[in-house]
């Protein structure tokens, strides 16, 4: 073929010499946003990240990502009230991703597969005393050990777990799960000494050569109220009762049990009573359902199991086989006020579940540790007034939940580490939140949440078998894949595909994409069509 | 140069006749030029076609307004104005009819033409007899050959054989030959009276 006709015929692809990027007044930029689930997690888990691993079927990788923040996934997956799911953007689309179910699946898989927690860093030569082997103590011990510090946990109870073991019934949290995850932490070299109550903190640190201490002995004293009662009346406190269910010889409660209180412990007590053979388990609560502190799920499960509730009632007196109840009414401020109306209710036993207090006696000796409203005062780094002594969990002012306690442990570990190193705090910058309005949900296929199998009601009332079952491999994958990856690129190729100017380069698996600003005209289609809101337009600085 | 004008109606093969005549002349080793009266004629409408025959190359493209011969395929055209216009004094006329010249009443027009230059031929009848179809055009060329001697019978037959196939071919060849012989006979009949030779070569 001879020379091409001048001008009329052109060689292919020559327009790349024409840099249309100069037309642009705004430029697209890739960003990472903070997913609502991560934002809401008290333990500071990178939930989206471990779901990203899980959705690829890489369960061990997912578990490893998970335990970067929380060493107790099998436990949290069962007992955490998962604020992450309340925050999940998918909830606005169909239903929230069943994050806790996947977490539990990963935790259980780790137990079944015998995956080991990441090995500790090189020994720092520093020793830290942890008081209390509850979730917070276990968490801090784990993180400190990974940082290379030597940790010893002292626990007053005969076995580790604290409220996990003595506050939560086994039908919600099987004990072998506690044992397995505690064992993983023990395997890292954490020394856990049970049946050893610490009464003299300073002395113990001195004698044990500890450079710092973390106090997490929780709140195990049941709150006491004065109720007129006949000598013959049988009155128990909830924590003792629940702890008793752990013992070989469970406490005698009779057929008709009244539980006084409206928190989760009240629910646990009532449901446990049922399991111990009570034909009636009646909860007496002074306010109405809306104002009940117990977690709704707990209430529903309790009612489903035949527990009944007397709303707007207080116990005026306890007799041998019956109690007197006074009707209440809420004032404008929502506080219950007596009405003077009384009724009676048959009861072989009354269990008081009116909240717990921390036993702060051991702190009395530490004059520089301030105690206010029955809680230890700590600074932003969870350090008490006494340098090197930190505190967390139920004994500091915060929500008293397992996950919050675990979160305290993680934070405290970082802070103790810095304190030991004498390093200043280096606060990591937080990304902007990936709110629902940042998403283009068209690109997400419809996928309803998987329902975890539940133990049928009859079997629930006859034993302490675990009520809620777990996911299997396939539906865990399914559930993980329901994640919208809010605010963070998951390489769907949309931007690469929808650019009319081929101004997006695909960098390959895990490498995401790059804009070619030589050609990008700034139309913004990539921003509009990004499913997860990981691109923003910023003005060109001309 | 010998120039022929053929009159007929659309569908009677007027144009074909001129072409066959040209091919026949070509077969005789002469130059020939056949062309229709260009236009979009429809069946039944009066149609004219032309043919020039010459010893030399024919260059002119002008219409034939002074023909040496007229072939009239359809007697109903006879009284059309200008049918005989431009006919040379020594010209020939061949009319397709079974009637006599007197009967068709053209005596007046052809009075001054030489004796034996005006003949009638029952071409349609002959065509029906040999082709089973009223297609007089080829048949008339047989009579034309005999009347004018402008082309040989053999050349006409060859032209027909090249042009047609099957029964049309056979039928036309027979018909043309019969037409030629009839005409020749008719002329000879006249000649015995007139002592006149026929088939004079064209100028």
């Amino acid at each position, binding site marked *: 073929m001879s020379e091409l*006709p001048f*001008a009329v015929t052109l060689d292919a692809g020559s327009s790349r010499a024409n840099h249309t990027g100069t037309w642009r007044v705004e430029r697209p930029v890739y960003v990472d946003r903070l997913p609502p689930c991560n934002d809401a997690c008290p333990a500071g888990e990178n939930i989206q990240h471990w779901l990203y691993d899980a959705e690829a079927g890489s369960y061990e990788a997912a578990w490893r990502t998970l335990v970067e923040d929380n060493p107790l996934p099998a436990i949290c997956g069962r007992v955490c009230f998962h604020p992450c799911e309340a925050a999940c953007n998918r909830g606005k689309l169909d239903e929230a991703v069943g994050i806790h179910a996947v977490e539990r699946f990963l935790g259980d898989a780790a137990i079944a597969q015998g995956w080991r927690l990441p090995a500790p860093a090189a020994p720092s030569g520093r020793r830290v005393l942890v008081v209390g082997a509850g979730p917070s103590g276990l968490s801090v011990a784990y993180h400190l050990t990974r940082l290379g510090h030597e940790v010893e946990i002292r626990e007053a109870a005969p076995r580790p777990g604290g409220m996990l073991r003595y506050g939560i019934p086994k039908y919600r949290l099987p004990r072998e799960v506690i044992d397995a995850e505690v064992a993983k932490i023990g395997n890292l070299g954490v020394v856990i000494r049970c049946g050893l109550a610490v009464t003299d903190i300073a002395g113990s640190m001195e004698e044990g050569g500890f450079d710092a201490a973390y106090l997490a002995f929780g709140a195990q004293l049941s709150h006491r109220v004065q109720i007129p009662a006949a000598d013959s009346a049988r009155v128990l406190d909830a924590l003792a009762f629940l702890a008793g269910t752990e013992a070989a010889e469970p406490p005698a409660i009779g057929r008709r049990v009244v539980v006084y209180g409206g928190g989760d412990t009240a629910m646990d007590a009532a449901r446990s009573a049922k399991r111990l053979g009570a034909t009636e388990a009646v909860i007496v609560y002074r306010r109405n359902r809306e104002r009940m502190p117990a977690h709704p799920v707990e209430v529903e499960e309790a009612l489903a199991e035949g527990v009944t509730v007397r709303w707007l009632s207080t116990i005026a007196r306890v007799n041998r086989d019956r109690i007197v109840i006074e009707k209440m009414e809420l004032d404008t401020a929502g506080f219950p006020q007596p009405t003077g109306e009384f009724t009676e209710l048959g009861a072989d036993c009354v269990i008081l579940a009116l909240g717990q207090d921390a036993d702060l006696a051991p702190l009395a000796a530490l004059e520089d540790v301030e105690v206010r409203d029955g809680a230890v005062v700590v600074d932003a780094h969870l350090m008490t007034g006494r340098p090197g002594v930190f505190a967390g969990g139920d004994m500091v002012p915060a929500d008293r939940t397992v996950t919050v306690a675990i979160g305290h442990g993680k934070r405290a570990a970082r802070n103790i580490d810095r304190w030991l190193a004498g390093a200043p705090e280096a606060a990591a910058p937080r990304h902007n939140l990936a709110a629902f309005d940042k998403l283009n949900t068209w690109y997400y296929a419809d996928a309803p949440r998987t329902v975890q199998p539940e133990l049928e009601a009859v079997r629930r009332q006859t034993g302490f078998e675990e009520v809620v079952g777990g996911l299997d491999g396939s539906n865990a994958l399914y559930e993980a894949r329901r994640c919208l990856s809010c605010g963070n690129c998951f390489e769907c190729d949309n931007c690469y595909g929808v650019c009319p100017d081929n101004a997006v380069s695909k960098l390959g698996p895990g490498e995401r994409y790059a804009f070619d600003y030589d050609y990008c005209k700034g139309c913004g289609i990539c921003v509009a069509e990004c499913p997860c809101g990981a691109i923003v337009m910023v003005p060109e600085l001309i | 140069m010998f120039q022929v004008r053929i009159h007929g109606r659309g569908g009677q093969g007027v144009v074909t006749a001129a072409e066959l005549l040209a091919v026949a002349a070509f077969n005789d080793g002469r130059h020939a030029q056949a062309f229709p009266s260009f236009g979009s004629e429809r069946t039944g409408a009066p149609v004219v076609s032309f043919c020039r025959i010459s010893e030399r190359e024919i260059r002119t493209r002008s219409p034939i307004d002074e023909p040496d011969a007229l072939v009239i395929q359809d007697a109903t055209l006879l009284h059309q104005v200008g049918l005989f216009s431009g006919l040379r004094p020594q010209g020939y006329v061949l009319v397709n009819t079974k009637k006599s010249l007197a009967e068709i009443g053209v005596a007046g027009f052809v009075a001054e033409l030489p004796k034996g230059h005006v003949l009638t031929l029952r071409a349609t009848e002959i065509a029906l007899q040999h082709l089973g179809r009223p297609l007089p055009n080829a048949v008339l060329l047989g009579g034309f050959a005999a009347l004018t001697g402008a082309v040989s019978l053999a050349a006409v037959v060859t032209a027909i054989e090249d042009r047609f196939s099957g029964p049309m071919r056979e039928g036309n060849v027979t018909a043309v030959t019969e037409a030629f012989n009839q005409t020749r006979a008719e002329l000879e009949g006249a000649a015995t009276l007139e002592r006149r030779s026929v088939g004079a070569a064209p100028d």
Partner: protein
Amino acid sequence: MLRQIEGSRAVGESVALCRPRVVCAYPISPQTHIIEGVGALVKSGRLRSCEFINVESEFAAMSVSIGASAAGVRAYTATSSQGLLYMAEAVFNASGLGLPIVMTVANRAVGAPINIWNDHSDAMALRDSGWIQLFAETNQEAVDLHIQAFRLAEELSAPVMVCMDGFILTHAVERVEIPTQEQVDRFLPPFAPQQVLDPAAPVSIGAMVGPEAFTEVRYLAQARQLEALDRIPELASEFERVLGRPSGGLVSAYRNEDAETTVVALGSIVGTIKDVVDQMREQGTKIGVVSLTTFRPYPEQALAEALEDAHRVVVVEKAFAIGGRGILGADVDALVSDRGTRTYTVVAGLGGRAITEAALRRVFGEAIRGELDRVSFLDLDRGVVDRELARMAQDPRTAPSVERVLRDVRESAARIV
């Protein structure tokens, strides 16, 4: 092989011998027999590996040819009159893209009033389309010019239009020498396109060219046409060598040596003029005729040489630039007037009006005696025109004059017949 054959069929044979690979057919008189002929040769298998496509319009006919040519095969089509104008846009496009398409134009008048008969209005309307335009005097020349046209088009990457008079040539049955395939193959090599749509070596054909380069594109097109002025005579002589017959070229002169009066014309009318020249020479008139086989590119130099000794030039042409003057006439006048040569334009044969030898003898005589208008219409019916002009003078708002003139002509015709 020497045959007594209709012009259209002869051209069909000739085109087939050139082995076109894509042929488009759309009927229009008087072109139709040509494309029917080619179609029959494809159907019968005599013309092999050729796509014969019945298209929906002349516009499509040229467009399909454009695509085929751009895809690297030899493409051919034929048309007339309204058809040529209907495809006009594509005609310009083919030359602009430098595609060597060959097209026969069976010349016919352009309406309204609709008229199927011969003149050159159609070809002249596309005079500036960038195509090379060749005019055939005889059917023999028409046959030969097509063979040369493909060679010329493909050498220059420019389309060629072979013009032949509708009916007068297309429907005339006369003696024509049809070359052998072997002869044509020797003269016409296989098509080697300058550009081709090839997925393996992609290019973009038909870019948009702005003011910065459009002039240059046009200049190069002109250069290509001027190149044709050199190639056409060379090809003509090579053609004679291979096929043993002179044909084509730029201009051809007949008895023009020592001629004081030279007639210039295009196409089949030249034959009639030659007879008239002979007749007038016999009376001692020094007259000759020069015909342009190549009209575009305009063979300025060759024509100028042919007209060097003429005292006067009479241009007989079958077209007229309404509002202007003769088209060929103007070209010729521009060429010779500065030497003081007087030129006359005789517009003749419009819409198939017969051009008689007598009429030609008359106007040539008038020209020689200096009695001829610079521009005149041969055999114009003055009566009709004068009556119409008079009527228009009285009432400017009458029906289109053209209709009236036609009616009068019909009336007078009825009186004659």
